[in-house]
């Protein structure tokens, strides 16, 4: 029975270095090491082009190559016969390989040496198992397919976004044994991703943001492709940027993650967000984990989309429930800066952007009109909030606001009172101060 490329993907990761032989047109062979072989699809692999070296010169003139890869667990050796097809210098494959190379380079102390110039795509002509003794493979610790089946059912059963996000993180923790995970959603208006839920961190990081193209998460989002790193990397391009400004919340992150995987959450080709997981262990996530999480993210995206559609249909305007009696105690000062929608509560930063504008609208209605109950629909129709027409993520922003309030401002709570409806519960009097756009902050 012939061996398929899918079956030996773990051997391609370069945990144990691979070697390649090529041949010049004059018949002179060449042999050298390669950092890793990237799986493209069941019939193609890609090799990193880092220097214009002999291997590269050879394959441009004589496309045949032979490679040996080693299974990192069983130490089985596989020989691949390849044929060079083309070089890609941008796009998902290139970005995926660039990130992986940065991590391998850092792991082998060669950050200055390794730089990806292109992804050389090869057709796999044959795969041969090199005879020899192999170590027994340890019993698998979990079945990814069983975990995925169970998780998909549990996600599909969720009827609101908050429960869906929590269920996703619970499934990752209990079924996939991934205790550190973050869900970020895409704000198509600003081109940024914001953290809406996380698990396994001291600070939840809810409300933190990252731009498309920044770090492992941003690259996965921009290229709509999984980015998987097997080792700790010190390449700043792939690290979470340090957040210094007072209106920036730090992204949740392990101090020194050794394995990281970011997969895009897509519905069709529309980017909804990124699912990001990490581990303090080297080589924690394999190609199979990448596949499983990509499918899980797809299920998350589909359910997220369905939940939003169903919420749209509900939440009729309310008669206008008003507060019964004013809150007691010292007033809390809520400051709003219209320039970026940022909110400060007693001088402590709470949130900014659309979620900040929503909060300002709610507390104004609460203070001036004594309103306590609201619908998602009225917010969606409020032009002053500047919600994008499509994919406005309103539910996500409300979750974000609710969680930031719980963490930073516990005397104001958003309480769900039905589908598409919520109550603003306030335990202290509020004093509102607005700084209009254009005024000095």
């Amino acid at each position: 029975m012939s061996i398929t490329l899918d079956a030996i993907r773990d051997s391609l990761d370069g945990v144990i270095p691979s070697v390649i032989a090529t041949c010049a047109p004059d018949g002179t062979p060449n042999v050298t090491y390669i950092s890793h072989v990237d799986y493209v699809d069941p019939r193609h692999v890609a090799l990193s082009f880092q220097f214009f070296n002999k291997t590269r010169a050879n394959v441009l003139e004589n496309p045949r190559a032979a490679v040996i890869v080693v299974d990192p667990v069983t130490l089985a050796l596989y020989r691949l016969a390849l044929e060079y097809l083309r070089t890609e210098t941008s796009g998902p494959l290139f970005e995926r390989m660039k990130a992986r190379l940065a991590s391998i380079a850092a792991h082998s102390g060669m950050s200055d040496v390794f730089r990806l110039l292109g992804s050389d795509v090869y057709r796999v002509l044959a795969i041969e198992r090199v005879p020899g003794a192999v170590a027994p493979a340890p019993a698998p610790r979990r079945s990814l397919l069983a975990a995925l089946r169970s998780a998909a059912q549990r996600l599909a059963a969720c009827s609101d976004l908050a429960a869906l996000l929590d269920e996703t993180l619970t499934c990752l923790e209990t079924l996939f044994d991934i205790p550190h995970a973050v869900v970020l959603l895409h704000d198509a208006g600003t081109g940024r991703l914001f953290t809406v839920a996380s698990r396994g961190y001291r600070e939840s990081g809810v409300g933190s943001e990252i731009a498309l193209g920044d770090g492992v998460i941003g690259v996965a989002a921009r290229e709509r492709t999984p980015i998987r790193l097997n080792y700790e990397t010190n390449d700043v391009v792939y690290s979470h940027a340090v957040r210094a400004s007072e209106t920036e919340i730090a992204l949740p992150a392990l101090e020194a993650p050794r394995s990281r995987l970011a997969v895009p959450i897509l519905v069709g080709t529309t980017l909804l967000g990124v699912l990001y997981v990490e581990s303090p262990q080297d080589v924690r996530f394999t190609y199979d984990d990448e596949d499983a999480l990509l499918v899980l993210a797809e299920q998350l995206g589909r359910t997220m989309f369905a939940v939003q559609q169903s919420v749209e249909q509900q939440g009729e305007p309310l008669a206008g429930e008003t507060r019964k009696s004013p809150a007691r105690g010292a007033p809390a000062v809520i400051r709003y800066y219209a320039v970026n929608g940022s909110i400060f509560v007693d001088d402590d930063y709470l949130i900014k952007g659309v979620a900040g504008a929503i909060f300002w609208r709610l507390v104004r209605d609460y203070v001036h009109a004594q309103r306590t109950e609201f619908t998602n629909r009225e917010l969606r129709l409020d032009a002053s909030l500047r919600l994008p027409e499509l994919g406005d993520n309103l539910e996500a922003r409300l979750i974000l606001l609710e969680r930031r309030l719980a963490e930073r401002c516990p005397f104001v709570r958003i309480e769900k009172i039905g589908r598409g409806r919520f109550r603003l519960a306030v335990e202290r009097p509020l004093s509102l101060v607005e700084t209009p756009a254009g005024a000095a902050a």
Partner: protein
Amino acid sequence: MKQPAAGGTALDPMHVEFLALGVVVTVASRDARNVPTIAHGIGRRVAPDGRQVTVFLAASRSQALLDAVRETGAIAASFCEATTHRALQLKGTDAAVVPVEPDDHECLAAYLRLLDVEFQRVKDPEGLAKALVDHAPADLAAVRFTPTAAFVQTPGAGAGAPIKL
């Protein structure tokens, strides 16, 4: 088609010394249609005069390569020190499969001890050295050639630079 060795100049003592370390050996050849073949070597030996190098292979795991050597005599062999990434590539055009000599087994045993130490230092998976060089004594094959070209293969700016022989 085998071609006579062009030079036959002795290897630099520094390179002979490097080859005597526990270096990982990888060997490539090509067939008459210029299709490359590759195999992990399981040892190396440099002639006392430094003019010829022998690489050892497990015949059962290197059949295509041995056939290619017999067919064309073309060879490239890489020698890499795992702890330092220092590496050297030698090429020749007169490679031939030669009989294993009685003391080759002893030379290999000493090499395997060095390789083991080397692999322990880089914390490679236990058994990797064995997986790469595992062979039954009867399965041992030897390929001898005269290096006619040598190249630095240590990753970095100088990688690929030719070394004068």
